[in-house]
């Protein structure tokens, strides 16, 4: 049973990391222009990361 006490915080932590990553992608504006990002990946000189969030 003790293993549960170790595994439960681990899994909640992993889930929390996923949530934090999602919140970060949203705050940094990665859903603002899905079509443009799909196009930008084709060019080296356009692949300049997400736009500055404003």
């Amino acid at each position, binding site marked *: 049973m003790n293993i549960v006490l170790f595994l*439960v915080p681990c899994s909640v932590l992993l889930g929390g990391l996923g949530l934090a990553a*999602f919140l970060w992608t*949203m705050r940094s504006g990665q*859903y*603002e222009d899905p079509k443009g990002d799909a196009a930008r990946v*084709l060019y080296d000189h*356009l692949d300049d990361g997400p736009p500055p969030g404003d």
Partner: protein
Amino acid sequence: MSANLVVARDLEAFVRRDEGGAGRLELLVTGARCAACLGKIERVVLALPGVTAARLNLTTGKLAVTLGDAACAPAQVMQAVETLGYRASLFDPGQAAAAQDREGRELATALGVAGFGAGNVMMFTVPAWAGLFGQELTPATLTLMYWMAALVATPCALFAGRPFFRSAWASLRRGKANMDVPISIGVLLTLVVSFSETLLHGRHAYFDAAVTLLFLLLIGRYLDHRLRASARSAAHDLLVLQAPVAIRVHNGVEQGIPVAQVRVGDHLAIAPGQRAPVDGQVDSGVSEIDNALITGETALVAVGPGAPIHAGALNLTGRLVMTATARSEDSTLAAIARLMEAGAQSRSAYVRLADKAAALYVPVVHAAAALTFLVGWAVGLGPREALLRAAAVLIVTCPCALGLAVPAVQIAASARLFRKGVLVKSGAALERLAEVDHVVFDKTGVLTEGLPRLVDAPAHLVALAAPLARASRHPLARAMAREAGVGLVAQDCVETAGQGVEGVIDGRRARLGRAAFVGVDPVDRRETELWFGFEGDTKIRFVFEDKPRVDAALAIADLRALGLTVEILSGDLPGPVSKIAAELGLSSWRAGLTPFEKADAIDALKARGRKVLMVGDGLNDAAALARAHASMAPGAAVDAAQNAADLVFTGEALSAVPVAIGVARSARARALQNFTFSAAYNLVAAPAAMVGLINPFIAALAMSGSSMVVLLNALRPGWRR
């Protein structure tokens, strides 16, 4: 052509500058679709002197340009984009800032948190369900699992539930109960009861139900928001394309300013092909103007110095300079705006389907829960067991299916209409559209194409005048050239703005234009006409008419098949209106109506209990559009009409009107099916909960199952047409 015009303009008013002089300019670029467009536009704009950054958002079509200093004029950026073959339009800086989507971000964050909570809380509640299948956990482990579940679910549910709590609170303060009230009470009560059960080492806690419920509801809410936002921004972009730029002439210099900044007394230039931004009086220049969007009148009006000109009038031939006599929000427009506001107020009193259901549902369910508690206590269950059963009633009847029933159907219906080029501004509009029983059409630009066409002209006469017509840019001459097809062009052509065109055909001097210009005594026949004659020869008269849209008759037949009555209310003269009505087989029509009479006619119909759909495109329709039960406007309509209308159809086809009504009616039918299913489900689930047959596993299953049925019913194919 437009690029050349742009160079001369100073568009500084559209740039937002900070203290250091760095500026930000936003343009709406239409026509960019692929990676190549994106690369080309950004490269060319970035190469301009003074531009430090350029980024095109391919999804929204917005090009954000950062200007390093004052060296680069915004007009150069526009010209660069237009030279590449894309159309660039200016945004009012205020509107660009307001366009950020806060609500969407909040809903997406709530959805992410609820999804995290729903996924992780299952780790603790699934082992608890195992007890139902004989794999008993020890009571201590069960309580531990529930505490863990509480730790994850409570903050998630409280955070993700904020949109619902806020809306419920706002509704309760107005003394009403919307669908968010039972949702909020259900979630909060579920949490409270689950906590008390866990504290008392009880067997049943429902932490997973609370957060899963919010997750499912937020999916519907978020999709609904996305759809409405995209329809709104598409409608907004249409308005931007109509260029809210006024060209102010100050000491001989032309400067582009937002229409909202026009002051009384400003001198404004109107190039041919542009609309007058505000009411005013012509200072200099001679031209013809088209008032079709303002009064619905199809005949062109000649204007010269001193002539009044109304906002929205289209300048056709010559360049005009006018003095503004009103700001854009004042004067003649103000009366129409007041009528529109009154219409919008009467509409906000409309009770939506979901709220009607909530008004029935909330008292019944809450009374049933209270009854369960009291009866349970009375028959000797003890207060704790009685409260648990009352909570179970609230949980299984929690309006997950009800909360999804209407939005899911409306999302599917709006998406369907969106693909057909019809933008729906709100779900309530769709509900109102399903109820209409009478359709009122405006004539010019709605039933008709809004373009002049030559009528009853013998081909040999058209061929005679065609060489001159081909040399002119006047809309009537162009209609004639279209009719004649490709051929010779007259030589030595000179076009006199507002008068006509003169040139040499086969060595003979000829004129095409207004009666006086060609040498005929003008008679006011109130018909759109053009005269042609060789010098010293007989003069020929050509008459033009606005033809009905190709599918107008078909669309009206479809509307009749749907059981609707159809009527025309027009501001044009009785002659053209009766002609169109006869062509389309409509017996009821009224002509010569002012905007106020149109609105009154709608009110009179309402007073007789009719639910009216108004379809109109002009400023003279805006008040009627706002007052009607539901309203539609074509994409070419003036912005006031588009703002007032519930739906905007972007295509050429009038069949969008019957299609939209058909889809709205199907949506209503499906929403009612969903309600019926939810009610039937509650009729089974609520008594089961009252007698204590519901445990957490059954509750989770029933709730998700009923939501799935409702969603699938919304998504199944087989929409009408």
